[in-house]
């Protein structure tokens, strides 16, 4: 039997019934991962995983711990003690962290079994899965290898979509979990800012960053949040807000008010997506949901991408200034410390990263800061105010997660995509306002998945899972599998 394509919940049930052991499952997952055709893997920890699985298989199943013995992968910008972590960048080659990220530590405590690290766009900057030091990460839904999986959490999306493991950790600064989830037919979740500790997540833009993850069902997403949510004293931005029992959500949508943003939800060009998106709305309405169009000023929507780009580039230049070869990483020698830093950074970063640093640094310069960085901060505030206003009268914002299926590789670059300026970038609203947001599959277009997105009020994760589960129930698209060809 194929165990690794099951959901966490299903696999746990088999463990409890004694139908399979963690060792058998982990062995299967490793065999599959070894045959990976998507170029999704960084450092792997198969031996440690087998050891752990052997150990667990010799002990009693923890009936109340759904993560017991569940194999998973970790995006390579999340710190793992003793396991090389390079964020898919040459500059970090050889860097072996001294500590586990809080999320990794929590999963260890729950006896989930990590198989290793996954590729990303270099330092999580990018949305294509093309810019990591290992080259392109492929979308398993496209055996011709012409289409991207999206990014930056490319490898993590791919290993779950490929059926290696039931979940994988990612990170989301603009839409880095929720967009690839759309292209990979997965559930992709990003929590409220502060809900999950960022300790050990390599910072890209801390005011926007969140640890997120991919699962094959909404129920699994809730199971994970049960474990990962909550205050961590090592992260001063992590919240004291009460952790709920997220798996106890209700799928009743009666009386729940949904906002569709004009300019996003009435502007769908892909006909298959349009059809299925609208069908879900009809069905949701039948079940008692109240669906209304709302307006957010067009100028604000048009400013989403540039605002994001300025803020994230500015923050990223500062957050990656520690990568200088002086203390760790792939140092390139030089006569003076200035030469060491220059040589290390020149050799260590790709051109795309350098471009972002230059833009970020430029926008922070004293003479430009008012016009660029601060102006972007002001735009962000206006956007957040507009979104929060919508959410005072409506429970969720509902939208397509992407304009269509996974794009072809040659269509995507780091340049501004004018064709879908709003449709391709609106998920960043969730990062600007720090709101919980989830992508779930809505349809397949010629075998390629497309997702929808649901964004809720801060700390409304439980209700968000409930509503997402209702959509999952309507579409029937749960645990999508890549056909093995």
């Amino acid at each position: 039997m194929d165990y690794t394509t099951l959901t966490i919940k299903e696999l746990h049930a088999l463990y409890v019934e004694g139908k399979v052991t963690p060792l058998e499952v982990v062995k299967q997952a490793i065999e599959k991962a070894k045959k990976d055709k998507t170029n999704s893997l960084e450092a792997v920890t198969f031996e440690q995983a087998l050891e752990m699985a052997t150990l667990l298989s010799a002990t009693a199943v923890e009936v109340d711990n759904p993560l017991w013995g569940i194999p998973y992968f970790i995006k390579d910008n999340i710190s793992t003690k003793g396991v090389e972590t390079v964020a898919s960048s040459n500059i970090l080659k050889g860097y072996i962290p001294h500590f586990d990220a809080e999320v990794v530590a929590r999963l260890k405590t729950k006896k989930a079994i990590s198989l290793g690290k996954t590729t990303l766009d270099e330092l999580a900057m990018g949305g294509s899965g093309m810019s990591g030091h290992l080259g392109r990460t492929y979308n398993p839904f496209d055996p011709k290898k012409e289409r991207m999986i999206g990014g930056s959490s490319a490898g993590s999306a791919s290993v779950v979509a490929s059926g290696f493991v039931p979940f994988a950790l990612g990170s989301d600064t603009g839409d880095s979990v929720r967009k690839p989830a759309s292209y990979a037919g997965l559930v992709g979740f990003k929590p409220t800012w502060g809900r999950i500790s960022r300790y050990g997540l390599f910072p890209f833009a801390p005011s926007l960053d969140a640890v997120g993850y991919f699962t094959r069902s909404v129920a699994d997403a809730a199971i994970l949040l049960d474990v990962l949510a909550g205050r961590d004293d090592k992260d001063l931005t992590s919240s004291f807000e009460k952790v709920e029992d997220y798996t106890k959500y209700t799928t009743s949508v009666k009386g729940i008010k949904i906002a569709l943003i004009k300019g996003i939800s009435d502007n769908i060009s892909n006909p298959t997506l349009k059809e299925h998106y609208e069908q879900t709305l009809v069905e949701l309405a039948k079940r008692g949901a109240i669906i209304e169009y709302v307006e957010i000023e067009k100028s604000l929507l048009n400013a989403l991408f540039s605002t994001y780009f300025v803020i994230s580039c500015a923050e990223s230049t500062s957050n990656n200034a520690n990568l200088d070869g002086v203390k760790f990483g792939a140092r390139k020698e030089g006569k003076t410390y200035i030469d060491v830093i220059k040589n290390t950074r020149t050799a260590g970063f790709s051109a795309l990263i350098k471009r972002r640093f230059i833009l970020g640094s430029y926008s922070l310069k004293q003479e430009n800061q008012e016009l660029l960085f601060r102006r972007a901060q002001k735009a962000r505030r206006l956007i957040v105010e507009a979104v929060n206003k919508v959410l005072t009268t409506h429970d969720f914002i509902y939208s397509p997660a992407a304009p269509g299926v996974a794009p072809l590789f040659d269509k995507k670059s780091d340049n501004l995509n004018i064709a879908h300026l709003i449709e391709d970038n609106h998920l960043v609203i969730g990062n600007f306002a720090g709101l919980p947001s989830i992508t779930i599959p809505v349809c397949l277009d010629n075998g390629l998945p497309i997702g929808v997105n649901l964004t809720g009020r801060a700390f409304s994760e439980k209700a968000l899972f409930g509503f997402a589960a209702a959509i999952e129930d309507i579409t029937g698209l749960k645990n999508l599998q890549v056909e093995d060809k």
Partner: protein
Amino acid sequence: MEYEAVIGLEIHVETKTKSKMFSDAPVDYNAAPNTLVSPIDLAHPGTLPLVNKKAVENAIKVCYALNMTIDETLYFDRKNYFYSDLPKGYQITQDKRPIGKDGYIDLNVDGKITRIRINRVHMEEDTAKQLHIIEHSLVDYNRAGIPLIEVVTEPDIRNGKEAAKYVEMIREIVTFTNVSDGKMEEGSLRCDVNVSIRPVGREAFGTKVEVKNLNSISNVEKVVDIEIARQKAVLEAGGVVIQETRRYDDGLKETISMRVKSSAVDYKYYPEANLVPIYIGRDFIDRVIATCPELPTTKRTRYEDEFKLSQFDIDVLLANKDVCEYFDQTVKFTKNYKIVSNLISGEIAAFLNKNQQSITELKVEPANLAKLAEMIAGGKISNKQAREILEHLFEKNQNPELVAKSLNMVQISDEGAILTLVNSVLDENPSVIEDYKNGKDRAFGFLVGILMKKSQGKINPSMASSILKQEIEKR
């Protein structure tokens, strides 16, 4: 032309805490290099800063001492630049909203009070320590992340003496409030001076020169005056002062150019997103102030108004926090403040100095020193006897009254006894009385000497002198 100097100071204080500003790595200046370092201090990716509560409390105390407006919310910013001693590539500091702003301190220079406005007090972290050896640079990350408090004045200082006095006052504040050990020579209090000069009467400032890292208070005065003189000489020779950073060379006794600032460095300050604004609230601030040890300024006023000590005595006591504490302990048992002050700054200081000891090592308990002061004040012993008793107390802490008794040393202060003694001396020396009456002043001293000898030094000298005078007049 007459010039006046315009001087502003920036002082960095390493504040006493158990751990670093933003990590839990311990602070210990004597530890072997690179033994007190956490992944946070080395800027390992994914680490996040935590705020040291004790450092915040210490900053509040400094703000309180300098009459600052204290912010009820803490804001942190990043100062971005690349340097080998800066692990993160940025320093976490407070730019837009420092914890303290708009304060002042009053300097008493030669009896004249000058108010120096304090622009800001803010918290930040120290960089790593660097050691350059020929072609190599060694970095000690033990210092990386140690909490610093920076105090910045307005350009209100006019000369070296004021500058030195200001630094002394700041040192006094941070040591007396237990915020720092304030040791300039060890770098726990570092001082940068900005000096410019302008013709008297002109409002616009001259070109500012920064002089770095002055390592003693006496150097501050010297260096400021040397730099003022240098700038004057430049202008008088028809030259222009250039904006630069200089350092003082102790050997050459002059300031040396380190680097010319073509334009100000752009540190690209922006808010630190990993530390959301932290509301500390008025209650917290008030609690910290309530537990703050007595400020040196309050102490000065108390010593002056209540104890009637001279400015000189006060300065001597306040020069050392431990000495001051010892004084305060002693005067709990006696009201003879001046005598206690004299004993501490005289005999005790000499003894400690001779034996290279600090006052915390002194065997004499404050209560016993107070007793000794009472004995002196009551005329029971002479100053000479007091000195002798102290020698015994230095060896072993004991009751000075018992020491005096065992040495058979009680002073003759009984008027009748002195009168008898005086008259017997006068009877024996009629010729000296004659000399005295003929105007020989020395004769009086001679008689006192005989009195002392006869009483084995036990006679109360002031009483003896007045009775002697009175009895001579009668003859």
